[in-house]
């Protein structure tokens, strides 16, 4: 029953009901579920292999409990994440404020975590432009300011969803590749590590 090996941890963050679970559900199972219980459908953890060039990168996608009750615990969730998809609802300005909060948290606590800013429920705006509460350019500016990628998606139509996760996998692959080549060419690296290991365990 050995679990699948996972290359990178990706966490879903954002205010309750912005559509985190739906986004994962759409991406992994290519479906969107509506109905009285729709916000409780979906898996909590998904390991998803993604083809990137000739390689396969497996993302471990971590969904978080929606209820505000558990928000205080979120910091425990994103520990060690390589990517965070910070979601906000395009039709709910308060959710964007919340997204700003998450970004600040991540910048303070997880410097190695790449941030993806994601406006959800794009389909609602396509139907009725007046529903939009977050201007595309405002969000884009904010994303640039924090060095994040910016997407607007719809889990209902599937618009931009694959693109979002594909980008996450590609970015991970790029950084991982840089790391690998640095290791292969930089011969001194191992020696340094050895001596560190040595000093840690021999000095008292």
């Amino acid at each position, binding site marked *: 029953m050995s*679990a*699948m*090996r*996972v*290359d*990178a*941890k990706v966490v879903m963050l954002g205010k309750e009901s912005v559509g985190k*679970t739906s986004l994962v559900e759409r991406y992994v199972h290519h479906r969107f579920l509506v109905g009285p*219980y729709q*916000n*409780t*459908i*979906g*898996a*909590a*953890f998904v*390991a998803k292999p993604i083809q990137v060039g000739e390689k396969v990168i497996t993302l*471990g996608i*971590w*969904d*978080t*409990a*929606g*209820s505000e*009750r*558990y928000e*205080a*615990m979120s910091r*425990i*969730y994103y*520990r*060690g994440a390589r990517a965070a998809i910070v979601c906000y609802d395009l039709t709910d300005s308060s959710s964007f404020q919340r997204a700003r909060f998450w970004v600040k948290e991540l910048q303070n606590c997880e410097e190695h975590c790449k941030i993806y800013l994601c406006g959800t429920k794009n389909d609602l705006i396509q139907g009725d432009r007046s529903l939009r509460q977050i201007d595309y350019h405002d969000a884009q500016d904010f994303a640039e300011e924090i060095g994040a990628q910016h997407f607007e998606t719809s889990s209902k139509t599937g618009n931009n969803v694959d693109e979002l996760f594909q980008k996450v996998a590609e970015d991970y692959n790029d950084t991982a590749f840089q790391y*690998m080549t640095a*290791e*292969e060419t930089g*011969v001194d690296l*191992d*020696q340094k*590590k*050895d*001596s*560190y*290991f*040595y000093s*840690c*365990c*021999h000095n*008292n």
Partner: protein
Amino acid sequence: MSQRTERRGIHVDQSDLLCKKGCGYYGNAAWQGLCSKCWREEYQRVRQKQIQDDWALAEKLQREEEAAYASSQGVQSHSQSTPPQQPPGHTSLGPFSKFEEKKTNEKTRKVTTVKKFFSPSSRSASKKETQEGKSPSPSISRHASFDTDQVSRDFVDFLKNLQKTGREIHKQCRAFIMNMSSKKDLSAEELSECVQDFYQSMADRLMSHFKGSSDSVEQVMDQVEKYIMTRLYKSVFCPETTDDEKKDLATQDRIRALHWVTIQMLCVSMDEEIPEVSENVDKAITDIIEMDSKRVPRDKLACITRCSKHIFSAIRITKNEPASADDFLPALIYIVLKANPPRLQSNIQYITRFCNPSRLMTGEDGYYFTNLCCAAAFIEKLDAQSLNLSPEEFERYMSGQASPRFSSSEGDWPHSGHGVTATNPVLAQLNHNLELLSGLSSRQETLMESARSLQADLLSWPDTVQREVNDILEKYPLEVRSCTVSAIDANNMDNDNLPPPLTPQVFAG
């Protein structure tokens, strides 16, 4: 008299019923003829000896492990590196010295490639190993238990397939364990750093050895973790330098104080009325309790994962659809509250500090573990708001003045008498258990009664028999007649020894 009964193989002598140690109490066949007290003493002695034997076996295995490596390496390199004057008990120091030597090599000669690391490096070892004979043997090998040695053997078996690389890995691990055992006064965080650095450097080397195949690396790393952490467990689990133990006790008390929290307050979607759900709940509780009994971080993680899978099943069965993160965390909190797992904080800390990070950070196991951390944090901070209760209600439940299972106006519920039993399933269960227990105790009493009367019967039996025999002897006194009378029974000398009723009739010619 006793002679005669002895011949028929019946032990009825009073002394035969007594403890063989002669202490005056009755003995028991199940206790090899001893009384309970003497048996316990005897058992203790045997057990002590067994423990000593186990230790001896462990030490033997340790030596075999060394030998296995020597032989798997071929004779040529090892035979010249083992000086004859070296006492056998100190062979376990070999890898350490090689590690030391390796280090000096690194300082003097520049090792430029990673591959060189895996090349045999024991060519000029004889000088070093003579020195090492003087140092005391490390306590770690002396305290090795049977379990630990099984793990060592498995590790050796696993590494055999990797040949040279395997040997190098083994050497590294041994050396690392030796080093760690001499670092008694490091803080928990420093210990963790040492282990994590070791994992990191080992994984990096393996990565270049396996040319980037993460799966192979992970496989070896799992074995490395198992081997190292089985050995280090005792010294690094809940170390005295931390307040882990204090936290464990605090959490345990806290969970006990929260016994009144209901599944409804946590909004858990598990219906324990459904037998299959309650089965999964029970299994989840067992799994999370079992975590404490494992030594390897990954085995502990596996317990958490199994527990989580059972929770997911319970939710899926209840809701008839797959569970999500929204259902899972509250359910896990509920399970932790019900299970009150032993040394929860110590276990979380231990896993965090010593688990191979690639497992902990990214994979599915890591996800469940993180949820467990959240559950522990939630329970620690749990207040009225987290359960949607008013602060007053929360206080009353915490102080035991009220129980949420009854309407809160009925604060004096203990007086409401028998009605309670019907409504409260916990009380009903309790009463049921009490009934079972008292039934059991009366059956036990009956059994004891019968046993006592049996004992009395047994004790009086020889007397009865003796009395009967005497009666018969009196009625039919033995007359010794001349034996020349009969020709037929002339050589039957034993007839006289037979008891009277069996004496053959004599033909008077």
